């Protein structure tokens, strides 16, 4: 069976992608951000996963207001970097894994998670920035990627509880897939930030520190946090942290924390990053 061996959370700030693409990652402003991922790059290079199940949100790139799926699973053979208004990021096309993705889609639906199946989707910074942070600038991404786009643009996003339980269903689906694939699940976005209105620039370090602790040790409690608490305490765009709970739900209850990093600011945003391994079966 395929298995999920580890989870990674990471912010997906677009300016991080721009810093990489414009060769400014060594600048004094950006150097601390990238330094926080040096160990992560080594970790994932050593682990050599076959597949990344990548939970992210689309930022009005693949999905406008015409269709707003709450959970959209990318089942295509490839996903091109989106033109978000500045031209597409100069990063490799993302290779999908249709066989596993379709299997997960079917399994989830029969498990009563009615997700949307997507066969054509460009992927924006929400997906490509975490890949860049973890894999650097390769000519081709060294993994296949199954994207799960979660709506956090149109209020309300799914609840934390729904996300957490979806993570559990994703794990069940992966473990029913007949292969030896080693899967790492990414939950991206956050941490505290607000991009809009007179309160833009909002950052809450205490909230973020608590969230980082509880994503490790108290995910069930965290999954009960109402949306308004995210909006008020983590900023209007901080609500995207519900996506981290999908990652967490797909792991064991008891996990090993491998790495943690937190830094303010990257543009408008607090950068948070954590790596968690399942204690059992995390074959290295």
């Amino acid at each position, binding site marked *: 069976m395929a298995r999920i061996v580890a989870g990674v959370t990471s912010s997906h700030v677009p300016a991080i992608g721009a810093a990489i693409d414009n060769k400014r990652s060594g600048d004094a402003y950006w150097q601390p951000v990238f330094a926080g991922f040096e160990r992560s790059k080594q970790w994932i290079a050593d682990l050599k996963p076959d597949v990344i199940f990548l939970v992210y949100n689309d930022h009005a790139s693949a999905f406008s207001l015409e269709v707003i799926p709450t959970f959209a699973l990318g089942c295509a053979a490839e996903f091109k970097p989106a033109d978000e208004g500045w031209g597409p990021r100069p990063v490799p096309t993302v290779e999908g894994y249709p066989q596993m993705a379709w299997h997960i889609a079917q399994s989830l639906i029969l498990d009563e998670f009615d997700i949307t199946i997507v066969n054509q989707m460009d992927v924006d910074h929400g997906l490509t920035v975490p890949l860049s942070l973890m894999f650097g600038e390769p000519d081709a991404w060294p993994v296949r990627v199954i994207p799960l786009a979660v709506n956090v643009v149109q209020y309300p996003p799914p609840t934390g509880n729904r996300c957490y339980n979806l993570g559990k269903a994703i794990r069940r689906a992966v473990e029913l897939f007949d292969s030896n694939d080693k899967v790492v699940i990414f939950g991206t976005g956050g941490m505290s930030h607000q991009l809009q209105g007179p309160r833009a620039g909002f950052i*809450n370090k205490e909230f973020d520190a608590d969230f980082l602790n509880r994503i490790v040790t108290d995910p069930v409690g965290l999954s009960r946090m109402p949306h308004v608490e995210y909006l008020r305490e983590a900023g209007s765009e901080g609500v995207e942290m519900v996506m981290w709970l999908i990652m967490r739900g797909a792991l064991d209850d008891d996990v090993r924390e491998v790495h943690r990093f937190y830094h303010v600011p990257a543009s408008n945003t607090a950068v948070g990053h954590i790596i968690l391994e399942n204690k059992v079966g995390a074959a290295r």
Partner: protein
Amino acid sequence: MTTPRATYDDIPGTTVFDAQRSRQGYWLNQFCMSLMKAENRAAFKADESTYLDKFPMSPEQKQAILDRDWNRMITLGGNIYFTAKLGATDGLSFQQIAAKMTGMTQEQYADMMAHGGRPPDGNRYTWEWEARSRG
């Protein structure tokens, strides 16, 4: 049943993109979406008013776009991830747009962020801002 009353309207300086705002801002946001294509960006830049007339927006929405009044666009149903595409068309980053919405210069805003951002204390509830403006 009816939709529960919004519990987030007492967060200061914040507009939650809910159903009502999404309905109001549909064409404003779809206009922004059209700027994902390079040829549309060129057509818009060549003649902004004519391009905007292709979208059934209110006169107030069109004026807010022409004025690049970023907060007004949000008030009229715009969503930041969509209006950011207008910003990109103008060559602005997310941070530059955010600075404009706070009434700060970009330098002031970047400085605030470099010093840890806008703190939560005093910025959670509208009454905190109202008390401050009364002095």
